């Protein structure tokens, strides 16, 4: 920088500049389905401003966004819709699973709820909470920024295989009971036996 501020030269690796640009201008695509969507709206509004972190431009078109925030319960009817949206986003893209329902199905372990969106897509950051308070979502965006920077380990993109998808939507997993350590076991009929009965 010269004395009058007219020249402006930052020596840096191009890679670092690109990383800085990407993490400071994450354009979220909010996929808000239920209660977490309301907390996401609170995060985007003026009290817990998400645009401080660069995520101001909320683009509802997946082709213009690079971060997908899945906030809310994803049911089996909505699963293909979400996957289509994820596929429509361009690389590089990141996924935040906000809340308990999108991380693992939440309190809804029923016949129509996906037990976590990682059944159908790779996730970068999971935010716990039901719903997570806005500070939690902001913490997750900062965490994502550190991932983009390379400070934290990025979760490898394990694309689900055909077997995973068939098993995911159908709870009748062919598991070997003797391998499972926990006492809460789901049998082939899909109904959990009483935790205190002996496993045969």
């Amino acid at each position, binding site marked *: 920088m010269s004395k009058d501020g007219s020249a402006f030269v930052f020596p840096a690796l191009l890679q670092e500049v690109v990383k800085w640009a990407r993490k400071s201008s994450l354009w979220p695509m909010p996929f808000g389905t239920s209660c977490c969507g309301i907390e996401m709206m609170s995060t985007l509004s003026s009290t817990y401003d998400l645009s401080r972190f660069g995520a101001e431009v909320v683009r509802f078109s997946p082709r213009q966004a690079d971060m997908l925030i899945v906030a809310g319960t994803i049911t*089996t*009817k909505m*699963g*293909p819709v979400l*996957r*289509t949206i994820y596929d429509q986003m361009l690389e590089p893209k990141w996924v935040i699973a906000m809340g308990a329902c999108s991380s693992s199905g939440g309190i809804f*372990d*029923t*016949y*129509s709820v996906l037990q976590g969106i990682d059944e*159908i897509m790779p996730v970068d950051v999971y935010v716990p909470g039901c719903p997570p308070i806005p500070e939690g979502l902001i913490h997750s965006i900062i965490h994502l920024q550190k991932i983009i920077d390379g400070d934290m380990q990025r979760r490898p993109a394990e*694309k*689900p*295989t*055909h077997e995973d*998808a*068939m098993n*995911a*939507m*159908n*709870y*009748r997993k062919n598991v070997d009971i003797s391998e499972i350590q926990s006492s809460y076991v*789901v049998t082939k*009929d*899909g*109904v*959990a036996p009483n935790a205190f009965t002996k496993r045969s």
Partner: protein
Amino acid sequence: MGNSFVKDAEFLKRQQDANTRLQEKYLVLPLGEGRKLELDKLDEPIFWAKSADDAVMLVKSFKVDPNFKIDFLSDITAYDNTDKKDGPKRFVLVYQLYSTTTQVRIRIKTLIDLNEEANTLVGEWDGANWLEREIFDLYGIKFKGHPNLRRIMMDERFTGHPLRKEYPMKQREPFSDNVRLHLGAHSLPGQK
């Protein structure tokens, strides 16, 4: 002993008059054969109809009866009767009716069997359309004369009726083209 509603003498009298009228006009033989009147925990009348057709006929007659002034359909729902405590048939169909002018509530219940079809109320109230579709989706009770009896909550290709007591809570159903959407161009066994 009590409940959350205000014990308004005038309202209680109106409800009592409605109950009396139900007994006098609709329980009287020969048409009243097989019908019953009970009171629920809030002292609202539960009118048991003879059959599903009788229930719809009763709904229509309550609508035109000047003593009740029923003009509002609150809810149509159903529940499973697998332990047969309400009667010999499989399901119980419940109609909740309300009058916006006299605030009288009447509940009509009827027993309905597994493969029996009920009559639709879509001609009387347009709001019954989705309510009956929901019952069809979640219980499997069909409605004769319904213009659009398809699944509403679950996917169209879902088999099984989730709210029945024997449907396991956690049993999800995969669909082959959902899976194809997830994975791209994998072909599934048995698919061309």
